[in-house]
C-alpha cells in the first residue's frame, strides 16, 4: 500500500548520489540545501551592499572592476544612478526572500521540525523536495536578471506601481527586469506554499506519542506559526505578481492609471489603481517581516533555555505572544502607507493595532529578561548570539514606537530611520538567530563541534559592527536623509556625508568579519572535533536521535515516546540537572504546565 499519507513512514532510504544529496526526499538534506542556498544568497547580498555603501560614502570614486560585473551600469567604473538602484533592489529582494525567509524558516525548520516532533520525515516528501527546487529556480531567475541587456529592475523590493508596471520607458531594467523579478517572486511563493503545507501537517499529524502541542519546543512553535503566516501571505503575493506581469506583457491596466505621460509619451494604460499594488504587497509584506523574525524568536528561546539551564518563566505566554504577533501582523500593514495618499482615517485606524504589537513584543522580551534572572547562564557562541538577538530586537523594536505613529511618520517616512529600524529588528536580528542556531545545531547536523573561540570573536566583532552600521542610520533619518538616493545632492545632506563614510567603513569591516564564520563553518565541517552525543545537555527530541547526524529515519526505526514538557532543566532530585523529553523518569518539581 502506497499513498501520500504514508510516504513518511515507508519511503526507503535512497541509494545513489543524486537521490541522496541532490533530489533527495530526506527533510534533513533539504534543510541543508536550503541553508546552502541562503549562504550563497547572503554572500551575494552582502557584496551588493558593499558596492552600494562604497558609492554612498565616496560617490565620485571609481570602483575597480565594477564594469566587469555590469558593463552598461558602470562606464569607467563609475556607478550610474540606475545601477545603484538596481543593486539596491537586488540586495533587498535577495536578502528578504532568499536569506531571511529561507534560512531560519525553511532551512532549520526542515531539518529539525520533524525531529523535534518525533517523526521520521515530513508527510509529503515530494512536495518538500519540490519546494526547495522551485525556490532554487526562482533564485536563478532573480539572479539571471543581472545578465539581460538593461539589467535588473530598479524599482526597489517593494516594486511600487506604476513605476514597475509601465515598462522600460520608465527607466533601465523596468522592462525585462521587472518581469523576471515578478516571475521569480511568483515561483518563490509556490515553493514556500508547498513548504508551509508540509510544516503545518507535520506539526499537526506527525507528532510522536506523548508529544502534545504544548509539549512542542518553542522552535517548533515558531516554525508552525510562521508556516501559517507564510501560507496566507505568499498566497496573496503570488496573484499580485501575476497581475503585475500581465500589466507588462499583456497590456492590462490593473495598477496603471489613465493619462500617464512618461518621457513625453502618453501611456496606453487606463484606469488602474496605484494603491491596489501597495495594498496587496503590504498585506504580504508585513507578515513577511514576522515570517523572518518569529523562527528566530523560537531558535533564540530554545538556545537560551538550554544555556540558562531553566525553562522560560512561561512556555505558554511566549507561544501566545508569538501567535498574537502573527495575528496582528495582518491588521497593521497599512502603517507602511501612512503618507501614500490613503484615506487619513485609515492611517489612524492602522496606527493603533501597530502600537498594540508593542505589547506581545514587550512580553516576549520581558520573559527573556525575566528568565535570565537567577539562571545559570552558560556563555558560548550560540548563547551569545541569542543574547545579541535580544539586544538587537530591543533596539529595533523601540524605533517602532516612532514609525507606528502617522504624525511622526510625516517626518521619518522613507528616511534612513526606517532603514535602520527594519535592519535591526528584522534583518540583523533574524541573522543573529541564524548564527545562534548554526552554532547550536552544528554538532547535530555534522557530528562535529564548531570552534568556540573563533565563534566568540566572530560574535563580539559582529555585534559591535552591527551597531556601528545601523545606529547612525537613525540619526540620518532624524536629519531627514531620504533613503534610496544614489548620491546626496541636496544642500542639507552635505553635512551628513561624513556619517555615511563612517557607516561604509563599518559595513565593509563587519562584512569581512563574517569570513571568520565562513572559515569556522567549513573548517569544522571537515576537521572539527567529533561532537559528543548531547553537547549542550539539552532535552528536546533532536538530542535523542541515535547518532549525529541522525540516521535516515531520524530515530533508527524506534518511535520515540514523549513523557515531559520540552524543557526539564534545573530539576531537583533527578540524576542530572535535566531530564530528556523521552526519559520515562518521574519528575518531582518539573515546570510542567498542565
Amino acid at each position, binding site marked *: 500500500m502506497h499513498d501520500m499519507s504514508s510516504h513518511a513512514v515507508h519511503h526507503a532510504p535512497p541509494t545513489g548520489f543524486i537521490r541522496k544529496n541532490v533530489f533527495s526526499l530526506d527533510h534533513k538534506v533539504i534543510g541543508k540545501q536550503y541553508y546552502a542556498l541562503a549562504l550563497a544568497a547572503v554572500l551575494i547580498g552582502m557584496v551588493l551592499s558593499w558596492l552600494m555603501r562604497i558609492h554612498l560614502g565616496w560617490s565620485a570614486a571609481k570602483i575597480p572592476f565594477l564594469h566587469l560585473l555590469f558593463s552598461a551600469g558602470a562606464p*569607467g567604473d*563609475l556607478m*550610474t*544612478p*540606475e545601477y545603484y538602484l538596481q543593486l539596491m533592489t537586488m540586495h533587498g529582494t535577495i536578502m528578504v526572500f532568499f536569506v531571511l525567509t529561507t534560512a531560519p524558516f525553511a532551512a532549520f525548520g526542515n531539518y529539525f521540525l520533524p525531529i523535534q516532533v518525533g517523526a521520521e520525515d515530513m508527510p509529503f516528501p515530494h512536495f518538500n523536495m519540490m519546494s526547495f527546487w522551485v525556490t532554487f529556480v526562482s533564485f536563478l531567475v532573480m539572479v539571471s536578471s543581472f545578465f539581460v541587456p538593461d539589467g535588473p529592475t530598479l524599482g526597489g523590493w517593494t516594486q511600487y506601481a506604476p513605476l514597475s508596471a509601465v515598462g522600460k520607458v520608465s*527607466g533601465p531594467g523596468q522592462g525585462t527586469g521587472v518581469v523576471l523579478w515578478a516571475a521569480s517572486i511568483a515561483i518563490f511563493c509556490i515553493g514556500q506554499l508547498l513548504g508551509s503545507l508540509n510544516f503545518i501537517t507535520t506539526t499537526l499529524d506527525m507528532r510522536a506519542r506523548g508529544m502534545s502541542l504544548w509539549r512542542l519546543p518553542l522552535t517548533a512553535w515558531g516554525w508552525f506559526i510562521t508556516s501559517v503566516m507564510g501560507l496566507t501571505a505568499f498566497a496573496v503575493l503570488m496573484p499580485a505578481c501575476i497581475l503585475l506581469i500581465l500589466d507588462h506583457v499583456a497590456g492590462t491596466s490593473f495598477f496603471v492609471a489613465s493619462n500617464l505621460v512618461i518621457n*513625453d509619451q502618453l501611456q496606453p494604460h487606463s484606469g488602474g489603481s496605484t494603491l491596489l499594488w501597495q495594498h496587496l504587497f503590504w498585506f504580504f509584506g508585513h507578515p513577511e517581516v514576522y515570517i523572518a523574525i518569529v523562527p528566530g524568536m523560537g531558535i533564540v528561546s530554545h538556545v537560551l533555555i538550554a544555556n540558562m539551564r531553566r525553562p522560560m518563566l512561561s512556555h505558554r505566554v511566549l507561544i501566545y505572544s508569538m501567535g498574537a504577533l502573527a495575528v496582528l501582523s495582518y491588521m497593521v500593514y497599512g502603517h507602511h502607507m501612512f503618507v501614500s495618499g490613503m484615506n487619513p482615517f485609515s492611517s489612524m485606524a492602522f496606527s493603533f493595532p501597530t502600537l498594540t504589537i508593542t505589547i506581545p513584543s514587550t512580553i516576549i522580551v520581558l520573559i527573556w529578561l525575566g528568565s535570565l534572572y537567577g539562571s545559570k547562564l552558560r556563555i558560548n557562541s550560540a548563547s551569545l548570539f541569542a543574547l545579541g538577538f535580544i539586544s538587537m530586537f530591543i533596539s529595533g523594536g523601540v524605533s517602532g514606537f516612532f514609525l507606528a505613529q502617522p504624525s511622526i511618520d510625516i517626518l521619518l517616512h522613507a528616511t534612513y530611520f526606517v532603514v535602520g529600524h527594519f535592519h535591526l529588528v528584522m534583518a540583523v536580528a533574524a541573522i543573529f538567530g541564524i548564527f545562534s542556531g548554526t552554532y547550536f545545531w552544528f554538532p547535530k547536523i555534522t557530528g562535529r563541534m564548531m570552534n568556540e573561540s573563533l565563534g566568540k570573536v566572530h560574535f563580539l566583532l559582529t555585534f559591535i559592527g552591527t551597531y556601528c552600521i545601523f545606529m547612525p542610520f537613525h540619526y540620518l533619518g532624524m536629519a531627514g536623509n531620504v533613503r534610496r538616493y544614489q548620491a546626496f545632492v541636496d544642500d542639507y545632506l552635505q553635512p551628513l556625508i561624513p556619517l555615511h563614510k563612517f557607516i561604509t567603513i563599518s559595513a565593509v569591516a563587519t562584512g569581512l568579519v563574517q569570513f571568520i564564520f565562513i572559515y569556522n563553518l567549513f573548517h569544522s565541517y571537515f576537521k572539527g572535533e567529533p561532537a559528543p552525543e548531547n553537547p549542550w545537555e539539552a532535552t528536546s527530541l533532536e538530542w535523542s536521535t541515535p547518532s549525529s547526524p541522525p540516521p535516515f529515519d531520524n530515530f533508527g526505526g524506534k518511535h520515540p515516546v514523549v513523557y515531559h514538557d520540552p524543557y526539564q532543566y534545573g530539576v531537583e532530585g533527578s540524576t542530572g540537572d535535566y531530564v530528556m523529553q523521552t526519559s520515562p523518569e518521574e519528575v518531582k518539581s518539573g515546570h510542567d504546565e498542565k
Partner: protein
Amino acid sequence: MNVGSNQEKDPMTSRFKLTGIMSALLLVSVAALYSARGASAAGEGKITGTIKLDGTPPHMKPIDMSKEPSCQQIHAAHPVTLENVVVGANGGLQNVVVYISEGLSAGAAGQVPSETPTWDQKGCQYIPHVLALDVNQHFKVVNSDQTSHNIHPTPNPAGTNHEWNKSQPPGAPPFDVTWTAPEVAVPVKCNIHPWMHGYMAVVKGPSAVSDNNGAFTVNDVPPGNYTVTAWQEVYGTQTAKVTVAAGKPVTADFTFKAK
C-alpha cells in the same frame, strides 16, 4: 558599446559567412573605385545655401535651471531659452538639417564618414541642439557637466533603431554610439533635467546643419540630379531639386513660414 545596433543576429549567419565576406569585399572595392574616380574628376560638387524664416519668430520661453545649481551658475550671465526655433541675423534659421533625400547612388549612400562628431552635454544643454549623422556613423556622447545626465533617445518604435536610456556620471568616459537606420529625426531627452532636449538626424549620404546665419554647406556630393530636403523640428520639411556638376557648388535656399 554599440547601443544603436543590438538587434537579433541571423541564426544562419555562419552558413552565409563566406558570402557575407565576399560581398563586403566587393562593396569595399566598388566604393574605393568610386571614390578614386570621384577624386580623379577634380573633386566632387557641393550644395550651399541659406535658410530663412519668413515672419516673426515665436517667443522662446526661458529655461529655469534652479533645480541644478551647477548648471544655473554657468548661465547666470545670460539665461538660456528653448531652442526649438533659433533665428540669427537677418532671419537666418539655425539648426535646420539639409540632406539628399533622392538621387544618391548606392555607392555614395553606402559611404560612412570617418570623422566622429561629438554630442556634448554642457550646462545642462545639448551641444549641438541638432546633430546630423550618417547611418552607422560613430559619434561620441560626452558629459562636460558636474552632474549625471541620462541620455534617452526615443526613435520611432516602428523602425529598426532601438530606444535606449543610460546615465553618464560626471567624469565618465564618452559613449561611442551609432544608429543603424535612417531616421529624421530621433528626439533625445535627459529625464533628470527635463528641459534638455535635442535631435539626432540620421540620413544616408552627405548632409549639413545650418549655422546661426542659416547658412549651410553639404560637401562631397558626387555630380548628379538630386532632391534636397531641409528639415526643421517645428516647421517640418521642404524639398528642392538641384543638379550638381563636378567641382562647382550649386545653391539651394529654403524659406520656412512662421506659423
